[in-house]
């Protein structure tokens, strides 16, 4: 059993994913969607009504062509295998994906609360979340780093650089 697991792990390590064909497909599809959106744009009220469309039409067409060339230049079978292998991603890769997803989620929450909670409080929360993501065991240290970061950046921006940042409700900084 152990030998079998080791064999599977070594096969996983030996497999080099190749997403080129998939990438070509995504690129061509994106180009197509962009082209459709371009044709649906409102025409210009002044001058040549199609003037704002020419450049985007050229770009969309180029992307479709490049995507198709990419598909033909790639090993489609290898790309399909790579997609299938995604389910069997290593624990290391899964952990990285979770970290990236968590960071993106934290960024979205940060955007939502930024102006309501003010810079100091929202940044404290965001930084604490990020520091906890990279080091779960050191809560006190993380809290100190997050607090020092948010306060020092706030003071630097508002006092030294003259860039206003949202204030906390009630407390006023």
């Amino acid at each position, binding site marked *: 059993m152990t030998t079998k697991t080791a064999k599977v792990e070594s096969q996983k390590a030996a497999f080099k994913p190749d*997403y*080129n064909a998939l*990438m070509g497909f995504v*690129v061509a599809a994106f*180009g197509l969607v*962009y082209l459709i*959106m371009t044709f649906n*744009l*409102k*025409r*210009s*009220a*002044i*001058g040549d009504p199609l*003037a*704002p469309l*020419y*450049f*985007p039409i050229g*770009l969309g067409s*180029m*992307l479709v062509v*490049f*995507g198709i*060339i*990419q598909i033909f*230049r790639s090993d489609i079978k290898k790309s399909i295998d790579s997609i299938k292998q995604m389910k069997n991603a290593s624990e*290391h890769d899964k*952990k*990285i994906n979770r*970290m*990236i997803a968590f*960071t*993106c989620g934290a*960024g*979205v929450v*940060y*955007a*939502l609360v*930024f*102006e309501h909670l003010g*810079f100091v409080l929202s*940044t404290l929360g*965001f*930084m604490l979340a*990020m*520091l906890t*993501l*990279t*080091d779960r065991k050191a809560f006190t240290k993380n809290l100190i*780093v997050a607090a020092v*970061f*948010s306060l020092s*950046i706030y003071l630097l*921006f508002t006092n030294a*650089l*003259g*860039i*206003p*940042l949202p204030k906390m409700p009630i407390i006023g900084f």
Partner: protein
Amino acid sequence: MDVLTNLLHGFSIALQPYHLLLVTLGGILGTIVGMLPGLGPATGVAVLLPITFTMGPTAALITMTGIYYGAMFGGSRSSILINTPGDGAALAATFDGYPMAMKGKAESALAISAIASFIGGLIAAIFMVALATPVSRFALKFGPAEYFLLMVAALSMTASMSKGKMLKGFISMVFGLMIATVGIDAMSGSKRFTFGVLELQTGIDFLIVIIGIYALGEVFKSFSALLKGQKKAQTDFGRIWVSKKEWDRSKWPILRSAPLGFIIGALPGAGGTMASLMAYNNEKQMSKNPDEFGEGAIEGLAAPESANNAASVGALIPMLTLGIPGSGTTAVMMGALLMLGIQPGPLLFTQHPDIAWGLIASMFIGNLILAVVNIPLAGLLVRVLAIPAKILYPVVLGLSFVGAYAISNSPVEFYLLVVFGLAGYLMKKVDIPTAPMILACIVGGTMEQSFRQAIRISDGSLGIFVGSGLALGLIALTVGSVAFPFIKTAFTKKPEEKMAKAS
């Protein structure tokens, strides 16, 4: 004589105590950021950008170039000490710098990298003085059609130079141009791809794209290294200097590599990485002992270090004189200048000589200050490498978000930052170069406007794009840049095929 007068005027600006303080501060900050693995000059300038927002354009540009050179100086520290380049341009410093450190010659390696960077930067600054005015005067001959073709040539050169992945380079370029089409069309007032979002009407700020791609994308990429653990750097040193024998071995490679680096740096898309790798290969081929390369040959460190700093000065030529950024870092700097209401390009030297010549003079001063900072204080500065990555990456993320807010005063940019961070990571995953996208994103708006202006001037005829010798030359340059990799492959394949047939 004109040039000399202008340069002296530039020195009178750059030597003002405030500007001296800024170039020193920028240089130190840049050295620190450049040293940190994964954070190159582009990320450094992008993340530290908000500190320049309240400055005047001259002070802002001097600070940014200080950060830029500082990052170029600092990039090789982590290459030498932990075998991890701060950025691509410092990659070649790992080949012989790290083996030198392993052999107990870290002091010599740190010293020669700073000396070579200083001399390389200085020689390139002299070239800059000589070339800036003629190039900007020549650029005044450009009409909208030539300007459009110039941008096409710059973009195709950037895309074609993405080694072995030209098609992906062009895909990246088109994505960048598409980003530039978002917002209200400047010539007709029509809304394009705004999806009803008010904040998108002014377009997507390319600084957000840059911070997302470089800073967030790099942090996402670094999560893998974070899980694997951090390498420990040597932080205690003896006297950081070189022996006479080491200097004798290094001086000619340094002097030879600086002009090479400057020329390569001035080509759009080529940049410090290509310059340093070419200088390294060049020296290896010229060396009487090529076997020593990769084992700690001091000239193998001196040559690329000289070339990559010279390239960083060369990269400023197209940005300052033509208004076309040739690299990611100059793109960020150009973005910052545009924000301050200054349009880089041929008119910069006549309309804002204080900015142009103040900057050029500050290159000399900045290089000198950085050499002073990087040789005696190297032991102190490299302690930054001891900062745990677990703290460093969240701090970079925090600075990126606050930088994005400072650019537009709206947290809506945070969503875009996340999107471009993810895009940067995915592009790295599928091996799509990001530089063409960044450059296209910056010049896209002007490129479209030049195209439409040219069409309007010619009453709808495309003949205007082949109507002058300059336009034809630019078309030839574009075709040549696309064809060159194929021709090169064909020529390098032939001897290999012959060898295969012979065997």
